[in-house]
Every structure is written in structure tokens, then in C-alpha cells.
């Protein structure tokens, strides 16, 4: 018999991960299947093991929650809110303001099935909403996607690190399955990082004021600010792509999957390899910026077939196709409504792809 490790639901692990990353304040409105996050945090205010965690408030609405978070983020404190599908829609206005005001902020979306009220099963149908800004105006957010309970615990520290480094909202996009899944995880030993917060609105110091506003009435001012944001997003896209490769070295078919689908894909890689099929997995950890450079590397190393596995009608498949840029065949295998694709369906799709004729490739590749 061994000492019992931590055994937590994904949502609980995420809450602990945020606490260990130095969370100061949490605001949220209850919505299934994300409610374990506020429920876990509610009892932790003032506990000596998390000395920074001082503020927990159940907001009156999703709108109030994101705006309470904006207020706290404006003071430079580590702030988080969490929700699921319908609530994520309601928060979009606030996320747009936070992006425009360049506020570091962590927003968690435990994706459930939709559209509308949908159901409480897992989907990844908020992928576009998360990775394309989601609210009004031309902004982007950083989007992180865990695929296990231990990673649910690890990613809040990365999220805060990126949020403060770039002064931008960061979204953790997970799903109902991972939120409810319980797994054993090691106790992490991370000290919270420290970041510059000299920009925060915590009182003027003589002539030095801090004004956090998204209003730029002069057209030239807004133009300058939008260009500044775009340059920041370009830098993020250049430097912050993150992904994990599983057996892609010699792969004929590379599965691309995130979240719970990456777990299905891991199992598929194992079982297909056992049957002699050369299958690999590329798992985006940053959905935004999308790890297009890694796709590019795989294409340049000869991969000609990508199979994208996702819980929606086909959203990330667009990003894979954009990155492959016509140089490889990109297919999707999707499931919706809270259901997951079966291993048989994944196997059949991989086999169909593996035996298909070599896809069209770009001219220079053919010449080579």
C-alpha cells in the first residue's frame, strides 16, 4: 500500500493550480459543468496555505463576474473567472474591454454542448469563439487547452505568466469531460512568479497617473492602439506556440486533437501502432496562437495526412488546413451533442486515410 496521491476532478485541480499560481481574486456565477471551480475556491479564502487568495465572490450574473474581475485586474492582482458555454458568451463584452485595456485576466471555459442551453456533456464547439476573440472588435486572446487533470492544475500558472507578460486576457478552454474527470496527480511545487504591475490603477503618484481605458475617440489614436495590439498579437503568435508530439517522427497519418479528444487520440496512436500503422499525434496546447509552425515542420518533414479530431462540426480543422496550406490532406472526424467518437470510428478514419492515394502536394514538393 502506498500513500494516497491527490485524486481530484479536473475543475478542482484547476482551482488548486490557480491558487498555487498566486490567485488573489475569483468571481464567478454558477453554471454546470464548471461549478466545482467556485465551490473549491469558496472555502480557501483566508487559508494560510494560500496567503494571496483574499477575494471570493459569487457574482449576481456572468456580466457582473467578468466586470468584477476587470476591476480587480486593473489593480494588478491575479484574477480569475470561470464559466461554461452560455456564460462564456455573456462574458465576451468584458473580455473585449479587458483586451483593449490590456488587462491580465484568466477566464476558464468548461465547454459544454451547445448552441443555446444545449446539454452538460463535453463539446469543443466554443473553439472559434475562444480563438477568434469572441467579442466585438479586432482582438485576440491566448487560449490554452489542457488534456488531463494534472495539466488542469499546471496551466493556470502558465496562463497568469502569459497574461502578465503580454498584459492580455488568457482563456483556458477545457471541456465538461476533463472538468468532471478525476485523475491522480502529483502535488506540484511551484512558487508564484512575480510580474511588473507598475501600470496598475492603484493611485496616482505625483504626476504619474494610470488610466486604463478602451476609449480612443480620435481616429488616429484608435488606429495607433489597434496597431499596437496587433503587433503584440503577432509577437505572441511568433513566440508562444505550444504543442506536444506523440510518435510523429515517422507518421503516415498525424492526428491533431486537443482536450479530451487528445486522450482518445493517444489511445488510438497506441492501438494503431500495435497494428503496424504509423500514426502520430500533434496536440496543440495553445489553441491560440495555433501551433502552425509545428504543422509546417511536420509537412516539411514529409507528413501528408492530418486527421483532426474534435467535438464540434469542424473548427480546428480550419487552422490545420491553413497551416498545411494545401501541402497535405486534412480531414476531420467530429462528434457533437456531448458524445465522444468511438475508438472504432477513429480507427476506421485513420485506416481510410492511411490507404488513400498520396495526397496532392505543392509543386516544389512534387519536383523534389
Amino acid at each position, binding site marked *: *500500500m*502506498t500513500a*494516497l*496521491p491527490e*485524486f481530484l476532478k479536473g475543475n478542482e485541480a484547476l482551482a488548486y493550480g490557480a491558487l498555487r499560481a498566486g490567485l488573489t481574486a475569483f468571481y464567478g456565477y454558477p453554471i454546470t459543468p464548471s461549478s466545482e471551480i467556485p465551490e473549491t475556491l469558496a472555502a480557501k479564502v483566508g487559508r494560510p496555505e494560500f496567503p494571496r487568495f483574499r477575494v471570493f465572490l459569487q457574482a449576481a450574473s456572468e456580466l457582473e463576474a467578468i466586470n468584477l474581475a476587470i476591476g480587480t485586474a486593473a489593480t494588478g492582482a491575479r484574477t480569475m473567472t470561470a464559466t461554461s458555454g452560455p456564460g462564456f458568451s455573456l462574458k465576451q463584452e468584458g473580455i473585449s474591454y479587458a483586451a483593449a485595456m490590456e488587462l491580465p485576466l484568466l477566464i476558464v471555459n468548461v465547454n459544454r454542448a451547445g448552441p443555446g442551453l444545449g446539454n452538460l*456533456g*463535453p463539446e469543443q464547439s466554443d473553439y472559434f469563439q475562444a480563438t477568434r476573440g469572441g467579442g466585438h472588435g479586432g482582438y485576440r486572446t491566448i487560449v490554452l487547452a489542457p488534456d488531463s487533470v494534472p495539466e488542469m492544475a499546471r496551466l493556470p500558472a502558465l496562463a497568469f505568466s502569459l497574461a502578465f507578460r503580454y498584459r492580455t486576457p488568457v482563456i483556458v478552454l477545457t471541456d*465538461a*469531460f476533463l472538468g*468532471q*474527470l*478525476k*485523475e*491522480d496527480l502529483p502535488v506540484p511545487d511551484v512558487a508564484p512568479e512575480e510580474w511588473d504591475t507598475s501600470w496598475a490603477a492603484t493611485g496616482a503618484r505625483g504626476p504619474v497617473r494610470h488610466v486604463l481605458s478602451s476609449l480612443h475617440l480620435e481616429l488616429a489614436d484608435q488606429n495607433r492602439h489597434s496597431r499596437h495590439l496587433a503587433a503584440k498579437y503577432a509577437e505572441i503568435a511568433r513566440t508562444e506556440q505550444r504543442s506536444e508530439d506523440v510518435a510523429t517522427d515517422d507518421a503516415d497519418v498525424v492526428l491533431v486533437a486537443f482536450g479530451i479528444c487528445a*486522450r*482518445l487520440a*493517444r*489511445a488510438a496512436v*497506441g492501438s494503431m501502432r500495435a497494428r503496424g500503422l504509423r500514426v502520430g499525434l500533434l496536440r496543440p496546447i495553445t489553441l491560440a496562437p495555433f501551433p502552425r509552425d509545428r504543422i509546417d515542420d511536420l509537412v516539411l518533414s514529409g507528413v501528408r495526412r492530418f486527421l483532426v479530431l474534435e467535438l464540434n462540426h469542424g473548427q480546428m480543422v480550419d487552422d490545420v488546413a491553413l497551416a498545411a496550406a494545401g501541402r497535405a490532406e486534412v480531414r476531420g472526424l467530429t462528434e457533437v451533442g*456531448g*458524445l*465522444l*467518437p*468511438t*475508438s472504432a470510428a477513429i480507427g476506421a478514419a485513420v485506416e481510410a486515410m492511411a490507404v488513400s492515394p498520396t495526397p496532392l502536394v505543392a509543386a516544389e514538393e512534387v519536383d523534389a
Partner: protein
Amino acid sequence: MRSEAIVAGHGGQGVLELANWLAYYHLANGRHVASTPSYGPETRGGKVRGSVVAADAPIDSPIIETPDLLVVMNTPSLDFVPMLRPGGTLLVNRSLVAEVAPRPGLRVVEVPATDLAAGLFAFAPEPGLDTSMAANAVVFGAILALGAGEWATVRGPVEEVFRHTLTDRKQAYRPLDLRATESGFRWVRDHGAGALPATAPGAPLAASNGGAAPP
């Protein structure tokens, strides 16, 4: 080595608590565990379901498609039987499931869990309390009896699991749950499978590895 178990019943039967105990029992034995409530590649309404995957190596997919073990706590949960892999084990709470049709190729273990639990009234934390709610602990013991090891070696990890998982409010139930677990364990070791008439002749295999043979 990966093992997959699904526990199914209705609300109030402690189905998810049972799944949690099973998960912690694996953890106590140094295995990796992934456990979920009622999500999966198939959904059937109106039932509570918990799945427990345990393995010596890190677990790739936490999803169960063809379980090794299915625990059926009520009649509607028999709907899950077709999921079982050939040669898998169907563990039935015989107190609440009137009849189990012949299941060729499956090992069927029937335990009158609710009745056994009700009989443990002497261990109720308060006099007069209905102890049949401890049926999930009886089934927990029955599951453990399917593996190797005697009660004397299983008991320690079980106690550790209860210490760790029961809320402060429920710690008073610990003696009852432990006794119920032992009762389920011994029932399977004493009776094996096939002891009850509803089981088709020839279909069930012996209930335990190294336990008592069917009478």
C-alpha cells in the same frame, strides 16, 4: 495492465461513492486511476453511472467502451450489459434486480447487497437507522473478492480508503461501511457465482480467483 469498471444504478444508491472507493482502492495499491461520472461514448438517460479505469502506467484514454467489470445496482442498469467485453464480469445487486437473463460468455456474480446491508442494523451509527444504504459498501467488498487476496490483506487498504474519502459527517458510518464491505467480500468468497437459481446453468464462471468454488 489496464482494468475498466463501470458502476451503474439510480440516484441515492451511492453509485458514485462506490466508484470513488474503488478508485481510491487502486490508488492505495499504487496504480494510476481515471474516473468519471456518467459521460462516455454512449449515454442512456435516467441512470447514475461511474467509470473507473486503473492501470500501472499513466492512462491514455480515460474512456471505457468495453468494461471488464459492470456493477448493476438496479434493473434498468442491465441495459449496460452489452457493453461488457466477452469474458467480462457482471456483478449484480440481486436484492433489487429480480431476474438476470442468461448471459453466455460472461461471468455473473450475484450478491443480495441491499439485504445483506439491511441485516447489519446492529452496526448502525444510530439505533433504528436503516442500514440498507450500505449496499454500495457490500458491493465494494464483492468487487474486491473478485481479485486475489484474503480479507485480512484487503482490510487495511479498505480502511485507508474510508478514512480518506468519507466526509467528516459520514465518518460515523465507517464501522458500518467496513462491516458491509467485509460482508460482501465474504458472501462472494462463500457463495461464488451460480449460487442463485436465476443464473443460467453453465454460463457463469467461478466468482473468485482462488476463492471458494461454486457449491
